[in-house]
């Protein structure tokens, strides 16, 4: 069931603020990236390692506190995105409030990685959601994620939030809906689920 | 007209309006929430009238405990968001309720309006303090107080016993 989502808007403050205030606003977004881990495979282990004591990305303001998408600012897709999971990713991404960012962590979510010719793997999470930073690796080191976060923070510090920028961001991604990404597993619905056909 | 009068009128109007909304809204949970506003602003009335303790007890007991229980019970009934036509009162009940309410209001008004302005109390020097209320409850009115406590205790023990009976019957079957 495709749902027409309204184009997200930024607040009036972020849209019309003068330059010095925008610097402050960017600083706030930069150091408060509540992260929502979309851990799908082995890369998620490296993500967890980054959040633990020896790397501790809370130092950078990346706070792994948000249990759901509504409070999150940053989604880290770490692992193999399958076609079956893709609608869920898209749905949770759509539930995050703007301004939001995505880090694609590892080869699988960058472009399918080792599963580049699999029939059921999405060839890169950027086919369903806009990605801000791609971290290469299979899986990447924890430090590589930290470096990706720093790249993202530099990007945030330099960006200027506006409705036009949001529309540009979604220009390529807002057209297909999450539900269109799934396809029926059985072509003929009359036979019911596969198990019943076998009997 | 002093500031206190104005505040009292405002709080009183809020109380009356929220009370009206509590009985007229078609959303079950909204009714409970309006009741909350009503009871809370009633506590405000008490405080404006210089009866701090009564107001706070009103807040503690009614707003903090009873309305919470009401809301809790409503949520257990899967109270939906939006109006509920199936539990809506029919028109004749509404008319009767409105008539009864108007009659009660008229009765109370007839009893209280004539005495307005006859006697005034100086609220700036509080006459009734917490200690006076305490000595009144535990001195003059100690027997009614104890009787009410026993009544509540009986109700509590009764509720407990009823739940035990139900539990015992369920475990036997």
């Amino acid at each position, binding site marked *: 069931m495709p749902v027409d989502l309204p184009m997200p808007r930024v*607040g009036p403050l972020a849209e019309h603020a003068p330059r010095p205030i925008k610097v402050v606003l960017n600083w*706030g977004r930069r150091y408060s990236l509540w992260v929502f881990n979309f851990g799908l495979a082995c890369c998620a282990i490296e993500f967890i390692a980054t959040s633990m004591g020896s790397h501790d990305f*809370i130092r950078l303001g990346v706070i792994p506190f948000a249990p759901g998408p509504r409070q999150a600012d940053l989604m880290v897709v770490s692992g193999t995105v399958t076609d079956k999971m893709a609608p869920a990713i898209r749905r949770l991404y759509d539930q995050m409030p703007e301004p939001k960012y995505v880090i694609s962590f590892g080869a699988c979510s960058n472009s399918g990685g080792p599963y580049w010719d699999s029939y059921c793997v999405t060839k890169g999470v950027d086919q369903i959601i806009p990605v801000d930073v791609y971290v290469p690796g299979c899986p990447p080191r924890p430090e590589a994620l930290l470096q990706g976060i720093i790249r993202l923070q530099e990007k945030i510090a330099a960006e200027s939030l506006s409705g036009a920028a949001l529309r540009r961001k979604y220009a390529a991604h807002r057209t297909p809906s999450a539900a269109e990404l799934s396809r029926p597993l059985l072509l003929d619905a009359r036979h019911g689920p596969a198990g019943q056909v076998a009997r | 007209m002093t500031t206190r009068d104005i505040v009292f009128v405002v709080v009183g109007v809020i109380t009356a309006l929220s009370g009206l909304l509590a009985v007229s809204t078609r959303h079950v*949970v909204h009714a409970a*929430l309006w009741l909350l506003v009503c009871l809370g602003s009633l506590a405000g009335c008490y405080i404006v009238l210089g009866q701090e303790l009564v107001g706070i*007890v009103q*807040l503690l007991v009614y707003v903090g*405990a009873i309305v919470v229980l009401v809301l809790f019970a409503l*949520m257990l009934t899967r109270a939906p968001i939006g109006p509920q036509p199936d539990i809506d009162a029919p028109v004749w009940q509404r008319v009767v309720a409105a008539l009864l309410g108007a009659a009660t209001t008229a009765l109370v008004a007839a009893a209280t309006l004539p005495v307005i302005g006859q006697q005034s109390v100086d609220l700036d020097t509080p006459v009734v303090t917490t200690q006076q209320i305490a000595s009144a409850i535990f001195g003059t009115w100690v027997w009614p107080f104890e009787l009410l406590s026993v009544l509540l205790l009986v109700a509590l023990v009764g509720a407990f016993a009823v739940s035990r009976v139900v539990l015992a019957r369920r475990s036997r079957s």
Partner: protein
Amino acid sequence: MSGLTWLEVVLRAVAVLAAFLVLPLLVGQTEHKVMAHMQGRLGPMYAGGFHGWAQLLADGIKFVQKEDVVPARADRSAFRLAPGVALVPYLVALAVIPLAPGVVGAKVDASALLVLAVIGVGIIGTLMAGWASANKYSLLGAMRAAAQLVSYELPMVLVVASVALAAGTLSLVGIAQAWTPWWLLWQLPGALVFFVAGLAELQRVPFDMPVADSEIVFGPYTEYTGLRFAFFLLAEYAGIVVMALLFAVLFLGGWAGPWAATVGWLWTLLKGLVLAVVVIWFRVSWPRLREDQLQRLAWVWLVPIALLQLAVTAVGVVMMR
């Protein structure tokens, strides 16, 4: 209250508001750092430069910019009002908690009772949020919160009654003035009951079932974004401040300490901070209880202990008179 000029009222209100905005942030930052070091981490280091002191400011600035999402099926008015309902009671509570005999936002005769009453009102915000979100997890969380509050309100009121009985007054200033070190022993069971019940009312670990993220996402706050969510967070930390200060005033004598006449308010704040650190310490160390364990704890242990404490206090008061 009648002796105050308008200017003084405004000044006091501003001071209370400032404390209301600063103290919770202080507790939040302490939590970040204490929790990090208890887990062998460093905690925020970059926001603001020196050891990430401005982490919560950055959080606040970010929350202001976030999109304000109201779910399509939600009850819009209740959904929008809920954070305010959760937040304002703690502001009122903070206004009447004295830091020293003169340092108090508003002098109220029965301030101990007032604080308990308004804290009980705060739960309505959580209930409204849970019901109005049109989300099953929110509703479950709100029901857990309500069940928790109903159970723990009673022992809390009972132990506060015990302290009020011992002091012979319902005023927080009076209770703290009547405090003697002997109370540390005499009111110890009551103090423990108050602390446990306070933790449960704040929905802090180990009593954080209403927001148990492994079970019900984020409980009543699941659907909240941006500033409204920040209000809930602020309410939680303001709750810690209120509970810690209340505990300090009721059971630790508030400003009692060396040079109490001059730096008494500092003593109250210090005791409150230590208690807040204990709350954080519990959060780091302990796992979450189960809902039925929580109810059992309340009704089998806390209520009887609180009643016993009340009886002991009554006997003590009569004996000493």
